[in-house]
């Protein structure tokens, strides 16, 4: 059908949505294959959420502990994810991340060094050996800048400040391209491409206290679902144990796990190192049971077992939550993270420079002399678009997904440092997958003009409405709802209320009114983000209702323990009859991929 609205049009072989680590890495790979590649990003190049990653990138290079290997990394990852992971993704990730880190070095990254000049690796929660390659506490910045500079040197086209509204598919359901708009002008643009790589990151902006930026609205999750792909494990949300709690304006801002890796400990208002009381059976054999033993471990991992502060993030976040609820929290409702009494000011400033400045400048706290007040903050979604492990292909032909937007790799809980390596390993694989698909001869079908028109009409409706809902009010109410009903501890009745609440918010979203024009109008931009936020919030809530157990980043007060049978299934969301954010979502259980015996054996002889 002919198109009524005029749009700019661009033609490519591979369209990458998102310019964080995964998107950049995918684009590099597609470009190296000689394909016409474009990166479309909501922000400027180099500003994506990857810059916020602090602690490091996990890779079993064995530079500090030669006994480390991909097998140990694989096992740590699976156990951290409470065995819900797609084992094949975890396997590929553990095997390939060392090469991906070395590659970054060859592209100019300057990682901190060991005394003999190799890449230094630091300890992190859930990792048996010191495994995180890092640059002080700004590893994400180093990674994004390195990838950005590589992308620029390859001459890849980058369309900045451009928001994708909808993926367009052809009559057979295969990818044909997308409809988007330029934020600076508000002008609409259509991109034709037979292959699209989604690398849009997370969903945290739907919660009130989050370490995520405005961009993390779950666009890729929603675009995929609306286009016919499936989402899995959406209930698995990681609340990072250490976010700032004061001042309120920065509540949720991340405090790196590196503080604990480098010797920081958690204390309650009584000054007690409470984590010793929260060691789950699964981790008891390898966790220290006294402060003396734990403290020996930092210098020599064979002298004692691991400190309980370095348990996986879900364990630590729940423990903090319990301490605060029991009345042993700090004045501002967190607990204390103390490195001041344990390491010299010089050590702290050298190893954790960003944290030092962050607390000094935003809270007026000197972390070399004073404990930090911290509490859990919505940080990461383990769930996401269901992909084939080797190619990152979704069930929609031509659609690929990598990084946080993809599900499966991390199971029900992600270990720190595994996201940066995830971006590199699966970003590259998605680029390869997309390139193979395009080289297979697939061409993008011409667009149905009616689809483009409908997308534009829906996006611009709030600008035409004289009276209606303020998008900021709807966003605030959504954040309140998800924080209180689908937060760190969940129960069946609150989740049911959340669904009703989401219905009401969807109605309000179809009645938004926005003032001003289309050119760089944040109110309108938010209005176009709300549909994605609602879609992912609904999937998270549906997954949480169905998963009647507690596992990793999903804790049910009414089902407080894991259920072995539920540990063998993913809850899979799809939207068979379409309808966008107002459409019905179908949720069904499906068995997880079964691990072959040689990998299963790795868990049997584990100590």
């Amino acid at each position: 059908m002919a198109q009524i609205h005029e749009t700019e049009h661009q033609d490519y072989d591979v369209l990458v949505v998102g310019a964080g680590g995964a998107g950049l890495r995918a684009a590099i790979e597609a470009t190296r294959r000689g394909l016409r590649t474009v990166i479309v990003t909501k922000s400027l190049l180099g500003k994506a959420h990857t810059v916020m990653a602090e602690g490091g990138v996990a890779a079993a290079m064995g530079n500090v502990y030669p006994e480390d290997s991909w097998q140990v990394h694989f096992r740590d990852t699976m156990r951290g994810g409470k065995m819900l992971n797609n084992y094949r993704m975890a396997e590929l990730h553990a095997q390939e991340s060392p090469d991906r880190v070395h590659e970054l070095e060859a592209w100019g990254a300057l990682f901190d060094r060991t005394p003999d000049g190799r890449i230094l690796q630091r300890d992190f929660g859930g990792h048996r050996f010191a495994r995180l390659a890092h640059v002080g506490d700004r590893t994400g910045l180093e990674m994004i800048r390195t990838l950005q500079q590589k992308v620029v040197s390859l001459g890849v086209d980058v369309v900045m400040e451009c928001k994708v509204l909808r993926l367009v598919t052809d009559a057979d359901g295969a990818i044909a391209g997308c409809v988007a708009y330029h934020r600076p002008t508000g002008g609409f643009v259509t991109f034709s491409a037979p292959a699209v790589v989604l690398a849009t990151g997370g969903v945290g902006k739907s919660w009130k206290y989050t370490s995520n930026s405005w961009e993390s609205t779950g666009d890729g999750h929603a675009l995929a679902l609306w286009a016919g792909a499936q989402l899995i494990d959406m209930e698995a949300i990681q609340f990072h144990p250490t976010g700032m709690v004061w001042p309120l304006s920065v509540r949720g801002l991340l405090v790196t796990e590196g503080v604990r890796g480098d010797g920081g400990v958690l204390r309650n208002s009584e000054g007690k190192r409470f984590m010793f009381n929260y060691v789950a059976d699964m981790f008891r054999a390898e966790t220290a049971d006294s402060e003396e033993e734990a403290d020996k471990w930092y210098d020599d991992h064979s002298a004692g077992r691991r400190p309980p502060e370095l348990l996986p993030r879900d364990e630590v976040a729940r423990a903090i939550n319990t301490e605060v609820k029991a009345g042993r929290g700090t004045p501002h409702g967190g607990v204390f993270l103390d490195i001041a009494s344990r390491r010299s000011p010089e050590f702290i400033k050298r190893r954790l420079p960003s944290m030092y400045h962050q607390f000094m400048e935003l809270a007026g706290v000197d972390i070399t002399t004073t404990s930090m007040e911290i509490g859990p903050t919505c940080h990461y979604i383990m769930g996401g678009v269901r992909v084939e492990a080797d190619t990152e292909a979704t069930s929609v032909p031509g659609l690929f997904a990598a990084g946080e937007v993809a599900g499966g790799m991390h199971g029900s809980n992600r270990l720190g440092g595994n996201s940066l390596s995830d971006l590199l390993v699966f970003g590259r694989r998605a680029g390869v997958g997309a390139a193979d698909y395009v080289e297979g001869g697939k061409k993008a079908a011409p667009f149905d003009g009616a689809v483009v028109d409908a997308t534009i009409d829906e996006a611009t409706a709030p600008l035409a409405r004289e009276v209606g809902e303020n998008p900021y009010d709807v966003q605030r109410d959504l954040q309140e709802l998800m924080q209180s009903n689908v937060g760190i501890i969940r129960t069946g009745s609150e989740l049911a209320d959340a669904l009703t609440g989401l219905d009401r918010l969807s109605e309000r979203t179809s009645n938004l009114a926005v003032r001003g024009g289309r050119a760089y109008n944040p109110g309108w931009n938010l209005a176009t983000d709300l549909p994605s936020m609602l879609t992912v919030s609904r999937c998270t809530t549906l997954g949480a209702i169905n998963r009647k157990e507690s596992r990793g980043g999903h804790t049910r007060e009414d089902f407080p323990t894991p259920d072995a049978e539920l540990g063998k299934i993913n809850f899979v969301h799809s939207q068979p009859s379409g309808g966008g954010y107002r459409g019905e979502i179908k949720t069904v259980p499906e068995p997880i991929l079964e691990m072959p015996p040689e990998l299963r054996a790795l868990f049997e002889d584990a100590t």
Partner: protein
Amino acid sequence: MTDQATTGEQITLRVWRGDASGGAFEDYRVDKVEGEVVLDVVHRLQASQTPDLACRWNCKAGKCGSCSAEIDGRPRLMCMTRMDDLDANLVTVAPMRTFPIIRDLVTDVSFNYEVAKRVPAFSPPERPEGGYRMQQVDIERGQEFRKCIECFLCQDVCHVIRDHDDLKPRYAGPRFFIRYAELEMHPLDTNDRRQLVREREGLGLCNITKCCTEVCPEHIKITDNAIIPLKERVVGATYDPVAWLGRVVRRRKVRTTDEAAVQPAP
């Protein structure tokens, strides 16, 4: 947010509103809230009084360099400027002056992305068996430059870019001088960009007034640690007779601009 610790007092935020065709400052009365930064107040304005107020931001933690503006006349990050460090009654927020206005506080910083495309990227030797080796002490200066968050405040305040449109096509600016310095000082890099940075990127136009260093939110010593040493290296490659003799004896040639201006293999 409604549960903030309001102090009961109000202040005036004077914000520049407009676009490429022109604009003016507008005053907004807002509650004073404990512990807030300028960006918080801008966000509260968007959520309450003026939803179409344009401002660029991402991380709100001083790590991404998106929310650059001129606050009370000084180039700063809105997310790292605490309200209680400013004049208690009136705070002025304007867009960066050097770059063309898009809308309100958002400017067109594409000049910087164009300069970035001209930088010949890192060019290491083939990776040896067992990997590259570098000592921490040899990479620390490079790491200082790589702290750069590309807020472009140094570019905003640099008088060559700010006041000399005619020079901009052949001037990289402080953000990219630290990039060139980083590559020059990288223990593994094999390219030689000294003539290139002199002839094509205008290093000589910088007269080391240190304004860039003063505004850097990452406290990078741009002038002392990057620009001055880079100038010295360029002098060594161009005018220094002792260095010239050394090159003749060791038969090492300074790469010309054209020789240096190549991107490494993909």
